[in-house]
């Protein structure tokens, strides 16, 4: 049975401060999507396998379907809505558009967030490093080849810039 204990948490999401009262069992993915209305983050498998719900917590990619919202208290969260600069798109986002890095778009938010974290940490990854980093993000449409190309091209563009 439910015991609806609630807690008030404070978190920064995409640079904005939020104070939210959530039931203690609320998942972070549901808090983002339904308490804050940030539906860019998708829920796919609900068990931390598919990566669609990936967000950055203090810069690290995590599965928001496995994290309780209360764990995000006091944390800095970046979702797919927070990847783009004020004007235009992040180079990873543009590259996914240019090179067929998505088809249906349901894995794309998690892919973009995870790829962004990769390039932040390793601006010039090898193909093997891309595969190693991205293996927690499933895509059923692309067969991944154009995702790898998208990330590689984004890295090239960054090093040219």
């Amino acid at each position, binding site marked *: *049975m*439910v015991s609806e204990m609630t807690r008030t948490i404070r978190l920064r999401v995409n640079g904005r401060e939020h104070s939210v009262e959530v*039931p203690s*069992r609320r998942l972070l993915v549901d808090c983002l*999507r*339904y308490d804050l*209305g*940030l*539906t*860019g*983050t*998708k*829920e*796919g*498998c*609900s*068990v931390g*396998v*598919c990566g*669609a719900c990936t967000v950055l917590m203090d810069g690290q990619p995590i599965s928001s379907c496995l994290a309780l919202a209360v764990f995000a208290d006091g944390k800095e969260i970046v*979702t*797919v*809505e927070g*990847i*783009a600069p004020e004007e235009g*798109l992040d180079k990873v*986002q*543009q590259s*996914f*558009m*240019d*090179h*067929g890095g*998505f*088809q*249906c*778009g*349901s*894995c*794309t*938010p998690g892919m*973009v967030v995870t790829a962004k974290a990769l390039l932040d940490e390793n601006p010039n990854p090898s193909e093997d490093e*891309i*595969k*190693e980093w*991205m*293996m*927690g*993000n*499933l*895509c*059923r*449409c*692309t*067969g*991944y*080849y*154009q*995702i*790898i190309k998208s990330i590689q091209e984004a890295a090239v563009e960054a090093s040219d810039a």
Partner: protein
Amino acid sequence: MGPMPYTVIGKPLESQEGRAKVTGAAIFTADVILPEMIWGKILRSPLPHARIVSIDTSEAEQMPGVLAVLTAQDLPDTLTGRIVYDTPVLARDRVRFIGEKVAVVAAEDPDVAEDALSLIEVEYEELPAVFDAEEAMKPDAPLLHPDYRAYLHAPEKFFSDIPNVHSHVTWQVGDIAEGFSQAQEVFEHTFNTHSQHQGFIETHASVVSVDSEGRAHLWITNKMPVRAQKLLADAVEIPQEQVVVHPVCIGGDFGGKGSLMDSPLCYHLSKRTGRPVKMVMTYTEELMAGNPRHPTTISLRTGVSAEGKVVARQARVVFDSGAYAGFKPVPLVNIPGANAAAGVYGTPHVRIDAYSVYTNSVPRGHVRAPGDLQVTFAVESSMELIAEAMGIDPLEFRKRNLLQDGDVLPDGRRLEQVRIRETLEAAVEASSWGQPKAHPHVGRGVAASYRHIGTGEANAQMSLESDGIVKVITPVPDTGTGAHSMLRKVVAETWPLTVEQVRVEARPELFETDSGAGGSRVTYVVGQLVQEMTEELRESVCRVAAAALGCQVDDVVFEAGQYAVKGSSDPALTLAQVAEAGSGKPELCIRKTQVNRETPQVTTFTAQVVELEVDPETGQVKILDVVTSHDVGTIINPVSHQGQIDGGLIQGIGFGMIEEVVMEDGQVSTLHLGDYKLPNIKDIPPLTTVLVQEEIGPAPFQSKAIGESSITPVAAAIANAVYDAVGVRFYDMPITAEKIYWALKERDSHGE
């Protein structure tokens, strides 16, 4: 003749929704949030076959936060389905599979709805169950649907007296008895394939809001939204005009998203509570009660002449349909892919019998290239077995038998422009076929298939807008295949305009009938219609321009995107100015329907070569290289064309090696994506794509279909490569490391 000098065809074009998809702004069904929206959750049957004795919902109803609890007693006594209406919205008197819907709860909070399910008491009386299609066809098998023949849209032409067979379709060419009389040798082989889930990342979801006038507003994961309006209207007994479907992004389809799924329940809950209702399936629900690929038994009897020509092919294909046939989208209520059971080989005498059979299992539906993967595994394995038995090289045996122009397929089509020989030879040429192998347990396998270009009904509205944009309104959503970009390019190239001057919008609620996306149909049927409409609208615009310019139509020239009088220096008119001049003229907004019933006589071929290495200690397979070769027409959008090839191929490798909805006595035991493995980015092999291109397709600009090609032969090529590597032949899919391990162990224990 070289390729035509196109301006936008053949160049990459990002999708109109691309920006929304990479920034998280794109709205999928589960993202729809309406004021006062509440959630529905389903109680499912724990038994594979049982009579429902009683359901007590009183405790659940009293739980704080619960707004409604419904059972079949609260609903109209209707059945639903994509063609045959055989599926209850909620089980009424009996349940037929583990996972069938028995009751539904609505609550403000999805967790509360979920908790309330545990308070519903259902008393069942268990009935004998049958889990295997062959068993279900036996005379003493329990009958799942004694009233099958009375169901709406049950296919009378394909009724059978065999128990639980709801559709028996026969395809024939020549005279099968005559064929076998010409055979020097006759071979019999039987193969089994398993169930594969579509594996889309977005699970099925629905939102329904019933407004004060009784209209049902519907948001749904459905690639045939016009049809969904009709199906929902029938399921809940309201007129079709009362259903308004709202366009949303579809998060992957692969054949699976064409049903109502939970939307009738959303409707009833919304009607009951006066609130918008959302239901989103969990992945566990997808795996236990989605509509995965049919497990299939394929028995082939093949007659071969002394010269090594296949002269007769008899195929018995048994599809395990599961508890309901309602997910099948074709009027046969069967799997037409079975008619590929002669493969890419010209066979003068063929008889194929396909049986679709009820069992107490998850209802099966369409998955990309339905039936094709199953029969291609059988055909391409049997070709190797026969070649080996007759002492002919397997590739040479194939080449002796390949389809040629004028050959008649089992579905009755007389083929034209057959390119299988070129496609196969190109695949072999680009691979390491025939070269020395680097390691002892390396093997190579080849397989080939064909795929039809789909038919159906297309609808569109096309208009010149006041801002000078040509707008195409289609009922077909873009499920991720790039269908809308394809339409923009067809319009732009035909007119000619820039792609920026063309906008495509999905507005399914404006249409009453339509085939929607699926069956590799959209580029052909929708593309062709939109191309014709472009020519018609262009003529009308030219006439309006002539009137505005004060000249004859023949004196109008269209240059650099503007209309002008030939040879005159008067100012030219932009499209926006022509639109203003023609404001309110009906000919600047046209609407058309076109039905393509005849499957084109041009088809598409795929040939693939797989090189892999087996670890004999563990059975683990590492794919070293894949060559996928396709005969293609004009390529409209190279990035999305390659995306279809890549994605299909990896889905086919998943089918062949790791993916299986495992059933144990009707219970799915792979209930999340940790157990049901989809290929990840580290599983993909080096890939070489070979395009055997010629401008001969029936779709606009001589293009062809590509979406259901690359998925089909790869599993068979893997099977043949494993045999080549370790000498073990597999008759059952998928070929997992575990199966190889045990097969090698068994072989070694027999001292072979």
